[in-house]
């Protein structure tokens, strides 16, 4: 396989940078994905708090509820970055003007940013409204970051697939859930440990390894999704 030249690598980086700026600029103007995801996250957190009625929940329950809120908030927001391109008819323009690798990288960065915003909003809300006492806040933050990275890493390419399928309703959630379930499961376990004051390093490594593997595979496969017949 031929290694890209320095000029080629620079052009790719430039394309990535341009696409990232474009996506952030569009999202900053409309704030659709972030608004929907954050609203869903806030509503769900408040609903959980309301129905808990001040009951003291265990570490396992808190971990579970936290990640359920994160997961379904992500399902509301992370496919938007591709479905928007297909719905507005800008996908073909993007195919012509940017290499597939640049598009994927930019969308991945965008999705990581979106889920980071979601977690940054949900975590304090959840801790505040459900009165959670976290024994290791640093470990909890690490797990939240690693878990959300794993979710974004695996769902970006799935969002591209769903956009090509017409972006219908719950298809994104259906195809994402089995792929995201292993890191979700480990994230719940690790969050429980962090809340209770246990070790999370092994679980964090698992989540980062999962993210790395999915990003690598998605990067290689994205060209097959992005091409137009």
């Amino acid at each position, binding site marked *: 396989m031929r290694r890209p030249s320095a000029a080629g690598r620079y052009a790719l980086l430039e394309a990535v940078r341009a696409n990232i700026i474009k996506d952030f600029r569009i999202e900053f103007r409309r704030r659709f994905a972030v608004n929907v995801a954050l609203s869903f996250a806030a509503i769900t957190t408040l609903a959980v708090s309301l129905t808990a009625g001040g009951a003291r929940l265990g570490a396992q329950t808190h971990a579970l509820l936290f990640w359920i809120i994160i997961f379904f908030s992500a399902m509301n927001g992370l496919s938007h970055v591709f479905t928007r391109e297909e719905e507005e008819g800008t996908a073909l323009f993007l195919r012509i003007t940017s290499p597939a690798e640049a598009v994927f990288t930019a969308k991945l960065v965008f999705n990581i940013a979106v889920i980071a915003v979601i977690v940054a909003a949900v975590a304090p809300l959840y801790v505040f409204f459900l009165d959670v006492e976290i024994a290791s806040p640093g470990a909890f933050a690490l797990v939240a970051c690693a878990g959300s990275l794993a979710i974004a890493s695996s769902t970006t*390419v799935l969002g591209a697939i769903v956009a090509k399928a017409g972006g219908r309703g719950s298809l994104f959630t259906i195809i994402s*859930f089995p792929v995201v379930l292993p890191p979700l*499961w480990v994230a719940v376990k690790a969050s429980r440990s962090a809340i209770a004051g246990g070790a999370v390093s092994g679980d964090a490594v698992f989540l980062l390894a999962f993210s790395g593997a999915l990003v690598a595979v998605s990067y290689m496969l994205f060209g097959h999704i992005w091409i137009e017949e």
Partner: protein
Amino acid sequence: MPAAVIMAFMYAPAAAVLGETSRLLYFHVPLAWVSSMAFVVSGVAAIVFLTDGGRRAPRAQDTFHNSAVLGTFTALLATATGSVWAKLMWGSYWNWDPRQTSIVILLLIYSAYFSLRSALAGRPARGRLSAVYLVIAMTVMPFFVFVVPRVFGSLHPDPVINPDMKIHLEPEMKLTLLVSVVAFSLLYFHMLLLLNRFSKIRATVEDLRDE
């Protein structure tokens, strides 16, 4: 296959702790093995389809789809036999044991694959996108099949592939299990070839109808 069945009921002795219920081992374990193997075959055929573009392996799309069909079928059977064994050994059909959870996740992946394929009906990218999803799912498989059950405690007996890399069974049971695994694997490949042949015939008939 008849040899496997006869050996399971007549040749292999009952296990020391598990008793006569241990004979389910010769059906449950091969079915679980075949469901995993079918999944890997699907993934590999999907990779061949994506990299080859139908030049040297024109039937790769049929292979990965038919293997997914067989994998779903065997996963369902593995779940059913495992549930029966769970009821006999642990007192309930379902316990969310990590291995039980792994097979459910495999079934979820298959159902997601079929949902995606249905949503892509009539689109030229159907084969390509379905193949991409299978490859992604195959990438996830090592994480939940091999890592998660070893991270969490399991109700299952010692894994067959265990830390000291030995199979902890009596020689007759070991032989019966091996024969059963081989028999189920051969049955899987035979059914896959039949399904592929059927897919080819159906494609030919559709082409003739279009003309």
